[in-house]
């Protein structure tokens, strides 16, 4: 993906760029809001990482200007203002996801890749596929290697989220947000427990495990 990072903190921007480039993305940097808007308009990016507090032009006004221009590039908003109301403000201004500082790079990566994929032309899908696993979103059924797997509604949504990002890391926070709609971090390993139950249903009877734990980051469903 070609990604534009608009961030005034040079060290943080450099780390983000380095990290994203390591996993094969092309990254441009912009140090202030004006430059960021100019660059976003002049080139076709797959995703934008946008800090809210920027010199010259703040992140939200940049985003609003971009959207008014008809630009639908997916945007991940970064901010030290991690409160839910700020999150709502950011999403309302046209952001696709919101990540509060402090974030870990894996969290950032997972989220950027998640929004970057959203512009797939086949955006209205009724069937998801990962490896030998298939999910029918209308019939609410899951099969692996032709074998039917029975899931509870929440397990279904958990698996759906993992399948939509198959092959990518999905963090615990992302799962809590997307599957449970909670925007706080529980102190316990509550997500791990749900994952291990799901794993018991989808991996136990098969030779090759599909659901992997990525240490210090989250989970990945093998594509």
């Amino acid at each position: 993906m070609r990604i534009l990072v608009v961030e005034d903190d040079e060290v943080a921007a450099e780390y983000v760029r380095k990290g994203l480039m390591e996993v094969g993305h092309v990254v441009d940097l912009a140090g202030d809001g004006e430059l960021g808007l100019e660059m976003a308009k002049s080139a076709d990016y797959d995703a934008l990482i946008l800090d809210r507090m920027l010199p010259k032009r703040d992140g939200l006004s940049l985003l609003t200007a971009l959207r008014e221009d008809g630009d639908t590039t997916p945007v991940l908003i970064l901010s030290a203002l991690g409160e839910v109301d700020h999150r709502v403000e950011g999403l309302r201004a046209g952001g696709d996801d919101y990540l509060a500082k402090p974030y870990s790079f894996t969290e950032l990566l997972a989220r950027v890749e998640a929004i970057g994929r959203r512009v797939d032309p086949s955006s209205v899908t009724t069937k998801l596929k990962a490896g030998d696993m298939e999910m029918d979103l209308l019939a609410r059924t899951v099969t692996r290697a032709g074998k039917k797997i029975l899931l509870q509604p929440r397990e279904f949504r958990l698996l759906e989220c993992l399948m939509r990002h198959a092959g990518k890391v999905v963090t615990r926070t992302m799962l809590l947000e997307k599957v449970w709609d909670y925007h706080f971090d529980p102190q316990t390993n509550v997500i791990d427990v749900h994952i291990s139950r799901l794993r018991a249903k989808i991996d136990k009877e098969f030779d090759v495990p599909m659901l992997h734990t990525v240490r210090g980051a989250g989970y990945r469903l093998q594509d």
Partner: protein
Amino acid sequence: MFASVKRLFKSTAFRLSMIAASLFALSSLIMLGYIYYATVISALNQVDRDLQDELEELVTVYHKLGPDELNKIIIVRMLQPGSDMKYVYEYRGQPTGNLNTQPTFTDKKEWNLVKQINEFRNTPSRKFTYQVDEFRGDEKTTTTHRARGQFRQISDEAKLFIARDVEPIMAPAERVRRALFVSVALALSLGVLSGIIMSRRFSRRIGAFNRLAKDVRDGDLKKRIKRNNSGDELDILAEHLNSMLDHIDRLMQAMRYAGDSIAHDLRSPLTRLRTRLENAGSEIEDEAARDALLSASQDAGELLRTFDSVLRIARLEAGERREMLVELDPKPLLDDIAELYEPSCEDAGLDFALEIVGKHKIRADRGLLSQAVSNLVENAIKYTPRGGAITLRLRKISSGRTEISVTDTGLGIPLEDRQRVKERFVRLEKSRTKQGSGLGLSLVEAIADLHRAEFELSDGPGDAKSELPGLRAALIFPKFQRS
């Protein structure tokens, strides 16, 4: 009715005007009392002195000139025009005088001159009443006049009683006395009336101040008092209060801005630190070094989370987000929490139950309330040993309020620590071994406050096997009112 009278008596304005009325009544009492004294008492004293002088003079006449001469002088004086003097002179049982009716002494019914003289020898002057017949044409009216008189036994054979009609003095005295009562009664009743009016007016204006104070305390810093621009003390107080609130509001905004800036300025380098550690950890080949770097990065993450929680609590305590509360049914919210934590409980060897009784409606923020309940459930899981039970309960309590409670059979919290654990960074000794920042219950308390809910900690049902007291943590919401 009774309550409103009680409230009236409690009102400062009413009390003040009652004091003013009493002072006014007292001063008119003193003033009229003085007028009464000047016009009546001193006049009567003068009468008594005149009687005394007259009596002495007549006694001298008796001794120097003899009883007949005295008789003559008395007759002359009686006949003097305009004289209001009354005389009764008895010599050897032979009376002379112009007191033609029987005098009535207030305490004696019978008129017996001898007896009176003997009884009241030492009293200088006595008051009494007697009948006066007045003729207007053929019509005769009898009126009772007041008078003062004095006795004297001059010798064994002669007795003398002289008196003076004091009706001309007493009639205005009566009027003064009546004026006195009327003015005192008027002063008092006007005082009560003005007290009521004043306290109404005053309490209306003070009420506005109280409402403002309450709103501000509840987190609405934008409220201001409406001034009437009269420039009186209350208006000036309102002006000062408003400018004080403006100032506080500015300070709060500055603080918030500073808080946001600190969050931005501190979190950014901390994030960098963590990213640096993370990146270094993923690049390094050495297993031990990588583990050290990764756990250092996790520590940095922990630090950031604690910092985040403190900021969150501070923001909640400022009450800014109260307007975000919406009407909701807590049942689905608790269903979600139960669904989220049931597997964790099972893994921890705990019985988990969700009990929902009745239909409920509360004013709440889904995200915040979920976080509060999730904190309570996580606490219960953390401090309840294997084999215990946790119950998440939604019910109505006696006052019709909605209660969400989490009950466990775990370690519990001693009575003396229950208030303390709600403070920031307070962790009880026995929980030190467990992970945590000591902010969980403070956050629950802040969320409860925002919802105007009470956060109560009490003993759980206890566990016969483990002999642990257990803990019951309850959030009690105010009765739902459609806004």
